[in-house]
């Protein structure tokens, strides 16, 4: 007995250590990845804490700490094993970089991987920190301290492992604190600028924030806030108490009205507090929220994956361009308000025209077909064929803003577009809300869940889908129209598939089917990258890609889904098999676009 259980334990331990090694390898790969893709190098410019640590460095550190954290969970039981395992994993993560520094200068990798520069190697090798000189060898500079990442990795890994040993509250607090610091560090510059304008807050701003990162007092403040909020959350549990209240109290006017008023105030005053490029970002967020709500009707409610959204966007934009431009392609010089309904109608017509043929196609194929349409429109937009009418690659210029205001007026520039977008957002949200509760909305949900059954209940699929598609097209056209007004021009290169994918991403990550979710998605997907300056913005799509994969894996219903979305997609909530002996999998699976469950093989 003892012999077998000993071998069992031995086997278990061996496989645990094997896992630790695998974690180390994976994180080593991750470290190499973030380095060679250029994330570390580019993010070097972003300070988190002024003169102390940058985002680039933080990413490297977090990679090693993360290696330790994960490895500790895989190592055999026991604190010593955990620390040992985490140190090993951290070492491996760092060693990968050490290898890079050793091999890099020998085989000049720069032909293939332009990021693999001596500057990068110096950075990783901590040359600045150690204050030493590079060595020279055969004409290449060569950081002597190649061992630096590996050694530091040991310590950081152990730190990560240590983290797993802490009691839960301490651990959560540390993670939250670090996260808050990173987040606020990136935002520091942005928060600073409006505060500098106002005399009272200017001094505070200078103390807390540098132009690019936090100052020490700022760090202290942020940590203090995090600790306080956490204590309140843990001790007083406000969120739980709120949820435990009966619905009536939750919705009580005394609570709702002040909250709503505050929210409204923030939304209305938002762009006025900022200068520089921020107001355009805010306007862009609003614009994408608007389009997201439009696509939300097609995708979120009716479940039609439309990847050709940009086609209707283009139609709306070019229509407004043609009708209002004072430049060479403008044909009418109408005022904006007259052009808008026209643009919407034209977009809807295109929606019907393009939708009717393809709406019988199902699922993924519909997505690709709509993608095809989007591409066709994009190609036509820049083609010579239509150049005479819509300007080819140069596009239509001189599109006036909707409302004429003198410069310096708060309504000039992007703010005007922001407020106009807000109005449209309210309108679309209202329309979506009414539709959802209507006969049509029910038909859409039914169709999305089980198209064949919906049809057997008398729902005309083509008609119902076309309506969804047309409404989505209408709002896409509206978005295009506002876009044209925002930038004063519409050029063919703005018409590309990335726009469609962006809007889809906004909805998916924000929470499809849900109005607040879409707005949240727009803030995250559009707003955040814009705020982090151009250099970071290069990696936007990379991060979008990763975000999509992660969200689909862990939270496919999105960050703030609608009730229906959560029901359909959140796997945990699915109940156990029905009582009375229903064979497993036989109740109609409530999943969009999935084939009806197990209709094969059951007699």
């Amino acid at each position, binding site marked *: 007995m003892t012999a077998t259980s000993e071998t069992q334990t031995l086997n278990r331990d061996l496989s645990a250590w094997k896992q630790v090694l695998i974690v180390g390898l994976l994180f080593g790969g991750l470290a190499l990845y973030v380095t060679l893709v250029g994330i570390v190098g580019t993010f070097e410019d972003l300070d988190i804490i002024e003169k102390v640590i940058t985002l680039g460095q933080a990413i490297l550190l977090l990679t090693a700490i993360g290696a330790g954290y994960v490895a500790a969970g895989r190592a055999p039981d026991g604190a010593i094993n955990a620390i040992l395992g985490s140190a090993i994993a951290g070492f491996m993560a760092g060693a990968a970089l050490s290898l890079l520094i050793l091999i890099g200068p020998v085989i000049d990798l720069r032909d293939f991987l332009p990021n693999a520069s001596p500057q990068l190697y110096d950075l990783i090798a901590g040359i600045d920190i150690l204050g030493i000189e590079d060595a020279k060898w055969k004409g290449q500079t060569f950081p002597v301290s190649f061992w630096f990442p590996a050694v530091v990795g040991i310590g950081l890994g152990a730190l990560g492992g240590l983290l797993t040993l802490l009691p839960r509250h301490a651990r959560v607090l540390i993670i939250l604190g670090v996260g808050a610091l990173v987040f606020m560090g990136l935002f520091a510059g942005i928060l600073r600028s409006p505060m500098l304008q106002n005399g009272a807050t200017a001094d505070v701003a200078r103390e807390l924030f540098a132009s690019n990162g936090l100052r020490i007092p700022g760090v202290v403040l942020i940590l203090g806030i995090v600790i306080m909020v956490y204590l309140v959350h843990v001790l007083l549990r406000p969120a739980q108490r709120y949820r435990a209240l009966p619905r009536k109290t939750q919705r009580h006017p005394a609570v709702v009205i002040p909250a709503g008023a505050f929210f409204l105030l923030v939304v209305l005053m938002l762009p006025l507090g900022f200068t520089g490029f921020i107001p355009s970002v805010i306007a862009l967020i609003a614009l994408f929220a608007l389009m997201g709500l439009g696509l939300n009707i097609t995708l979120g409610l009716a479940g039609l994956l439309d990847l050709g959204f940009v086609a209707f966007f283009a139609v709306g934009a070019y229509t407004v361009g043609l009708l209002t431009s004072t430049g060479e392609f403008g044909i009418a010089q109408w005022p904006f308000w007259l052009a808008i309904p026209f643009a919407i109608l034209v977009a809807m017509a295109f929606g019907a025209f393009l939708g009717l043929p393809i709406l019988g196609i199902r699922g*993924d194929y519909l997505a690709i077909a709509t993608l095809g349409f989007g591409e066709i429109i994009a190609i036509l937009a820049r083609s010579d064929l239509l150049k005479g009418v819509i300007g080819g690659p140069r596009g239509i210029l001189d599109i006036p803003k909707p409302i004429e205001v003198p410069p310096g007026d708060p309504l000039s520039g992007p703010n005007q577009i922001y407020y106009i977008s807000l109005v449209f957002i309210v309108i679309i949200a209202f329309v979506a809300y009414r539709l959802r509760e209507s006969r049509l909305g029910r038909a859409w949900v039914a169709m999305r869940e089980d198209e064949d059954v919906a049809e057997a*209940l008398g*729902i005309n*699929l083509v008609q119902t889908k076309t309506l969804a598609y047309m409404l989505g097209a209408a709002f896409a056209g509206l978005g295009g129209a506002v876009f044209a007004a925002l930038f004063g021009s519409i050029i063919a290169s703005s018409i590309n598939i990335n726009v469609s994918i962006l809007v889809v991403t906004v909805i998916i990550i924000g929470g499809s089917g849900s109005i607040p979710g879409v707005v949240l998605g727009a803030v995250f997907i559009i707003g955040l990258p814009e705020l982090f300056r151009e250099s970071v913005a290069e990696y936007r799509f990379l991060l979008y890609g990763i975000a999509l994969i992660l969200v689909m894996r862990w939270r496919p219903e999105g960050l703030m889904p609608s009730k229906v979305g959560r029901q359909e997609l959140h796997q945990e909530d699915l109940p156990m098999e029905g009582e009375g*002996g229903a064979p497993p999998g036989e109740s*109609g699976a409530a999943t969009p676009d999935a084939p*009806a469950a197990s*209709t094969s093989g*059951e007699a």
Partner: protein
Amino acid sequence: MALLEAHNATKRFGGLTAVNDLTFDLDEGAIVSVIGPNGAGKTTFFNCIAGFYRIDEGTITLDGDEIQDLRPDVIARLGLARTYQNIRLFGSMTALENVLVGEHQHLKSTWVHAVLRSPSVKEEERVATEEAHRLLAYVGLSGSHDLMARNLPYGDQRRLEIARALGTQPRVLLLDEPTAGMNPAETTDTTGLIRRLRDDLGITILLIEHEMRVVMDISERITVLDYGERIAEGSPAEIQRNARVIEAYLGKAHSEEVLSEYEPDDDAADQESAAAAVGAHAPDAEGALPEPVGAADVDTTPAPRDGLKERDRKPDTSDAKRDD
């Protein structure tokens, strides 16, 4: 003229003839069962009637109009509704909403009205909701109207499917194994409900059933299918004694055995035991007897078939058997 008729209906899937030259009629106000061993083509036949499959030959008529070329939603609007072998409710909608979807074709307001919330829409929705409540109460689900359909217990889900079908105000109701998976008490409730559907509401019922007791109890006439063909048709008593039927279910050797045990007799008790014998031997879902592996009788109510336009679903490029 019967309410629902099929004449020489044939449906083929590649090399397999699932429904073979089937002629059948259903009189208005009747309750008729379709039975047969697994793979006999019963559910496929339902799918043909309801418009999911286009038959290759023959005609199907509803109240004199040919419906074999019509789309399912048109057929539904003509007054034909169905339930499914594997329950197919809209799981993420409440019970009430499921029934409201059933009423879709009878609500006339457009989306524009809905956005504007005109008085006509409000009134229409109010009436529809009341009706939905009434239908739920009729099937015995009034307390559950607010519950998510997928959270309902199994028996309630079956009843909800019926309530939803009632929302379409059907003239003919096709029930596909309505008592599958139910215990005896639930089965009795369901048969009672089916009778009431005909007696109170005048709905003509066509049902597929494996549970012989139900079949014998409730049916006025029974049609027996095997390998896609109609092999017998008649009253329950006639079917019980029909040698060919017994042979279809039990195979030749066993059928002789059973027939020899039970003499054709008017005695009710004997009839019952004959039914019991057939019922006891009739393969149900876990049939103890070897059966022809009948792909055709699988619930091939089509799942969204990839890349196929609806209209092209009817030419048989379906992969109904191979749905994930």
